[in-house]
């Protein structure tokens, strides 16, 4: 398990005297600095010390202390531990923090999220609009003093339902009998506000090409109901003929308040919710959250549990990549046939998940200190049969069918290129980053669990186009098969839980950032505990959300038909984008 390295701590305070104050709260780490020094510090951090990869930006509302904190996690793409730094602002509107978009453009969507949910104004942000909720929504919902319409009390289990166990319809407590609440004196008939206005204004801000004919530009909306957006995702594009001149992703159509609910839940209650983030890879999500909380609790899972975890996480990666390959081919026009080949194998993996956890998709299998139960009888045989015989053969078969295909090659090679510099700049993660030639994989860069014991290659391709992103996924499936094969051979006997099973875990106060290499990229969980049964802050660094930062820049200049192909090659899952 990774912890921020103390060696660099010394180095930094000597390098920036007077700028940085160490975060001395018990259980916390990192540095606290002032608004005035932020840009200078971040520039030096990136240019002089080589911390070029901004992993996560989030905010924390310390309501009792009367302040709001913005937390930055920055890493090196060459690997190693990261740097955590924080800005504290008094909790009075307007809360202003300088935007880091000019230094780390990958901050764009994350800062918009912090503005939307916390109401922190990032000065200098080029396009600070709400992102998950709509413009005009009342309040900033992640603030601790903002209560949802069905609010009962701050923490679960709710007294009205437990221990008596009475069933209460939440609707019965609401004035309108529904999940709604309005500000005082609100009259819906005087509502003249258009939630879409800000989006269209932002879309019109682009450089007009002065050369050639003066043509009309039109705005086209794709989604949220569109067969190739992989869910309820919307893309608004400005077109000059068929050429894209500006593009904005619009999201939030599946924003189901993961973090707000997560901060009312007890720690263990959040485990099944993480399944529903990236619902194609629930085991990886469990893994990240378990790592973060175990770091806080200072618990180490048992040996057997570690191996089972790794096996499950790699199987999830294969299942997710199969889906990604099938869906990309679907988007390129090979309607459903490649998908059928991919899903056939995925079903076999889901059978294993069902055997170990009882559910095909929402596994809820990991616990703090191990996994929920041991492998049932016969499952290991099944895994062996699948990973030593069937899957390696089938992956080659799918690869043979697809990768020399003329349509895939002409639609993919040289199209939708993301250069290596841009990939780092926009905080791209996972296959998107590695297809651009950056061999950055959290399993190698900062090994967690027992990944340092396995032999596998970090897959990398150099062109950064749609075709390479497809090929990276094929290669990663091969590497995952290798890892599972090794894990099956080395799997020790023993218990699968380090702790006694508990209804409520005790988590000491502090902060932790657990990150894993999920199928979509670096998946991070930032958890703050104040010693109570519920987390004070629970934030998800969602790779497919942050990968969308690069979506606009990739697409500008392409033809409109390529939007679908680029989106398919980024491989987003809306449960994770919107959370």
């Amino acid at each position, binding site marked *: 398990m990774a912890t921020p390295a103390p060696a660099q701590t010394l180095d930094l305070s000597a390098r920036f005297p007077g700028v940085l104050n160490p975060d001395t709260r018990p259980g916390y780490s990192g540095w606290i600095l002032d608004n005035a020094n932020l840009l200078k510090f971040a520039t030096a951090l990136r240019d002089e010390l080589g911390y070029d990869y901004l992993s996560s930006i989030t905010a924390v509302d310390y309501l009792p202390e009367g302040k709001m904190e913005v937390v930055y996690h920055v890493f090196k793409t060459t690997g190693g531990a990261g740097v955590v730094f924080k800005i504290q602002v008094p909790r009075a509107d307007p809360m202003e923090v300088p935007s880091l978009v000019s230094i780390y453009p990958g901050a764009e969507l994350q800062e918009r999220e912090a503005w939307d949910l916390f109401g922190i104004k990032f000065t200098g942000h080029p396009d600070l609009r709400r992102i998950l909720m709509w413009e005009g929504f*009342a309040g900033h*919902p992640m603030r601790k003093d903002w209560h949802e319409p069905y609010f009962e009390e701050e923490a679960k289990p709710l007294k009205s339902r437990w221990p008596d166990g009475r069933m209460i319809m939440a609707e019965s407590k609401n004035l309108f009998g*529904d999940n709604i609440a*309005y500000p005082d004196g609100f009259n819906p*008939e005087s509502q003249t506000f258009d939630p879409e206005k800000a989006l269209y204004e932002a879309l019109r801000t682009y450089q007009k090409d002065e050369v050639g004919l003066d043509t009309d530009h039109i705005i086209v909306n794709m989604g949220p*109901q569109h067969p190739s957006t992989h869910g*309820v995702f919307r893309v608004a594009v400005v077109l000059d003929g068929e050429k894209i001149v500006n593009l904005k992703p619009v999201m939030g159509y599946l924003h189901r*308040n993961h973090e707000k609910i997560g901060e009312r839940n007890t720690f263990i209650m959040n485990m099944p919710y993480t399944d529903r983030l990236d619902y194609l890879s629930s085991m990886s999500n469990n893994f990240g959250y378990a790592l973060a909380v175990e770091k806080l609790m200072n618990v180490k899972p048992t040996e057997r549990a570690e191996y089972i975890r790794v096996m499950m996480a790699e199987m999830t990666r294969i299942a997710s990549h199969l889906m990604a390959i099938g869906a990309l081919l679907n988007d390129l026009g090979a309607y459903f046939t490649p998908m059928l080949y991919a*899903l056939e194998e995925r079903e076999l993996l889901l059978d294993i998940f069902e055997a170990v956890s009882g559910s095909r998709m929402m596994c809820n299998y990991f616990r703090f200190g191990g996994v929920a139960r041991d492998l049932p009888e016969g499952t290991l045989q099944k895994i062996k049969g699948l990973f030593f015989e069937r899957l390696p053969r089938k992956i080659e078969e799918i690869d043979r069918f697809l990768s020399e295909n003329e349509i895939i090659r002409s639609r993919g090679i040289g199209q939708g290129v993301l250069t290596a510099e841009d990939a780092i700049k926009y905080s791209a993660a996972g296959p998107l980053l590695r297809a651009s030639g950056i061999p950055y994989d959290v399993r190698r860069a900062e090994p967690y669990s027992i990944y340092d014991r396995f032999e596998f290659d970090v897959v990398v391709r150099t062109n950064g186009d749609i075709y390479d992103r497809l090929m990276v996924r094929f290669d990663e499936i091969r590497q995952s098969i290798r890892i599972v094969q090794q894990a099956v051979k080395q799997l020790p006997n023993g218990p699968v839980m380090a702790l006694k099973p508990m209804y409520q875990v005790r988590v000491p106060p502090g902060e932790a950032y657990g990150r894993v290499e999920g199928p979509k990229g670096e998946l991070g969980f930032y958890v703050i505990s104040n010693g109570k049964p519920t987390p004070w802050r629970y934030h998800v660094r969602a790779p497919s959300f942050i990968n969308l930062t690069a979506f606009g820049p990739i697409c500008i200049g392409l033809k409109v038909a390529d939007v679908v192909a680029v989106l398919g090659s980024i491989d987003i899952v809306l449960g994770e984008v919107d959370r």
Partner: protein
Amino acid sequence: MESNELNSPDYEIPPELQAQVSITSLDKIYNWGRSASVWPLMFGLACCAIEMICAAASRFDIARFGMEIMRPSPRQSDLMIISGTVTKKMIPIIVRLYNQMPEPKYVLAMGACASGGGPFKEGYNVVSGVDKFIPVDVYVPGCPPTPQALLNGLMKIQEKIKGESIKTARWYQKGPDMAEIPVPMLGPDLIDPRKITLIQNGKKN
């Protein structure tokens, strides 16, 4: 359909014609055709959509029920599978899609979220079940329902179709039931146009 299921009772068909002639009711033949070619709207909301795709893929093969033709356009579809969490931001679009579907149309609420909010019910952006806005014909429980459960729900839709009659079917009648569902608006919170007076009279919440 077997001929003994199709034929109306009490009509004698000469044995030499039994292979070619059938005497039946219009309802029966019409419903038979409709129930075996339900075209769902290709429309995935969340996790349940993945199980919906699996139901359409090799192992479960929705095509056995004549439903494999998923239409991306509401104008061409008969069945809306609400496959996932319905959010306040999304519900205006869902209602609009529902209004655009030609009748006869059916709605299947797939999973806990679509049926009643599910695990995310308490969230500030979550609608407590799609039936707050559009009428639902079949609810499929589960989180997510397995493809088998979805297939069972689809068979329930078929049963429902087979039990309908042209004389009484809602979409052939005149009346307020046929009116379009007013599309909700986004304000400080979701505004249901049917509740505007309630909102105006409402006190501070």
